[in-house]
């Protein structure tokens, strides 16, 4: 679901920061509650190893 936001453009003087992290912060382990349509969709994607895009096309 796409939300619409309004943003300024990049300043002409902008340059990308040079140091970038190689990965995001460590992940945490949790247990999903097996309920609802979103969980069903998650399970189907995970079990069948399909991407969001492939899932959308189904």
């Amino acid at each position, binding site marked *: *679901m*796409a*939300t*619409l*936001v*309004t*943003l*300024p*453009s*990049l*300043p*002409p*003087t*902008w340059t*990308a*920061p040079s*140091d*970038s*992290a*190689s*990965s*995001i*912060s*460590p*992940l*945490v*382990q*949790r*247990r*999903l*509650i*097996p*309920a*609802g*349509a*979103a*969980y*069903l969709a*998650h*399970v*189907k*994607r*995970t*079990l069948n190893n399909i991407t*969001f895009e492939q899932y959308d096309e189904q």
Partner: protein
Amino acid sequence: MPPNGIIPNGTAEAPIDVSAVPSIVGINFGNSYASIAEGLAECIANEDGERQIACAIAFHGEEMYIGNQAKHQLVKNSQNTITGFRNLLGKKFSEVPQAALSVSAPVIQHPSLPDTAAYKVKVLQPAPSPLPATAANTPAASQVATPRSEPIEAERILTVSEVTTIFLGSLVQSAEDFLGKKVLGAVISVPSWFDDAQREAVIQSAEDAGVHVLQLLDDAGAVTVCDAAGSDEIPSDRTQLIVDLGASSLELSLLSIREGLTYSLASLSDSSVGGDEIDSKLIKFFAKEFTKKTRTPLTVAPASDPIDKRAEAKLRLAVEHTKRTLSASPGAATCSVESLKDGLDYTGSINRLRFDMEVRQIYNKVYAKVKELVASAGIDLYDVDEIVYIGGSACLPGLDETLVEGFTENIITPFKAGTVVGGGSGDPTTILARGCALQAQLLVSLASETEEVRQAFIKGNGTSSVSATGRTIGLLVPQVSAADGGLGGVWVPLILKETPLPCRRTITAEVDVSESGDKVGFEFWEVNEGVRIDHVKPQTFEDEEDEEEEELEEVKEKTISKEAFLASLSLSPSNIIKGKAKVQVQAIIGSNGAVDLSIREVMKDGLGEAVTVIVGSS
């Protein structure tokens, strides 16, 4: 619903052959009250018109009462009235807390089954009917008609499971009478702290009552399902607090909800707060009033004298109505008891203001527990976006009023939204049964899915464990003239911390590109979020000459700071309309933590070429 679908799971090995449209229900099986719902329909009332059905069974003579009628037997026939059985399910006799044995029929060791909890009640069994008179030439014993023999007093031993089976059977029977069709299966809610033995016992008792259990759903799961079906004014990524105030306990859970996927961040339960305690305060108030009016002493909660005990039991039944009136309206609510003591009737009243004063301590206790829970998850009350209430006692508006004080002023609650009364979507007394009924529909629709998918709805199955993000990721458009203290530009959070993976978030941004050559682009950052608490002197007015030590006021503010720069993306827009370009920004994080970022310009006829960058897995 597929007309010939098989029942998807639970005890999936023995699928029921569904030949007609199946009737599948949701059951909220509390320790004190239960309710049942079907499909999108509201909770179903039993023959007595009640939607909250007391978990009570009473034996009186040859009669067996179930539900609220049984509760009335607590006044004169408490020894044969069974309550509080749900929490004993799946427990051995040696594990039953002695404190649990209170007003109703005592829990005993079953006479023949080892270490099994049971109830012993007195019943009247119909006498065996007299032998029919035989042929005429039999030597007549007597010309006098055989007197109808009296029913025989007998003892009946019922295990906790048997009691549950009787109760669930009657609940489902009421639903069948209402629906006019057989109930084939159910989703039943259970507290998250129920262990495997307790869950197994619920399933067994239900199956013994002829109800196939599709799934035992944690209370929080039932709420999730209801929510997902609810309004779109609520952000789809949020932190939710569930406050469940029942009769004998308070259950709190803090949940991360991300586009319908839910998990628990922390939970807590406390059996020293609940409706029973509220009742105690209220009946003490009325007992005092009674004594004032009639000059008849009456000591209740606790009562020691048997006459006072009976008066207390009567008052406990009566305040049930008083509390419901108080929840529904702020005006005076009455409490009437015939022959409360010494043959004296009593009618008293209390309004919500006074009532809230009487039970303030209980509200405060809940508030203290809420703070404890949120702190245990390492976050602040200000990080909570929504409160949902479950349980009869959570209908009281005074509770919500007390709690919201500590949260941000934007906190979403069903009282604010006006969805509590009139069977609204936020009604705490029906939310569990409705959630279970909706989940039941979803499970029925799984008939065409693989066995693996269906198994994923059974607790303990591996698919429910998931990796989630530890920090919020968003986009930043740096600005030369950015105000101090912020991140140095315009910040838009994309993927919040505690988002289960894999996940995808997409936003469309309209960007001002007044100068030609302006670039559209973003930096992607991981951030640290927090809440800063300042203690400031409250504003005082000149003429207020209060020499007392001024109490400092707590002022809270959400804070945000940069943790790590991940990547940046930019493009030169080609489709500029009235000085604005439109881009779609997408972030996908795989289950290994790899981040896939992309922007595309929104063109006249679809999306432009994607500019992408990938941040490695963690």
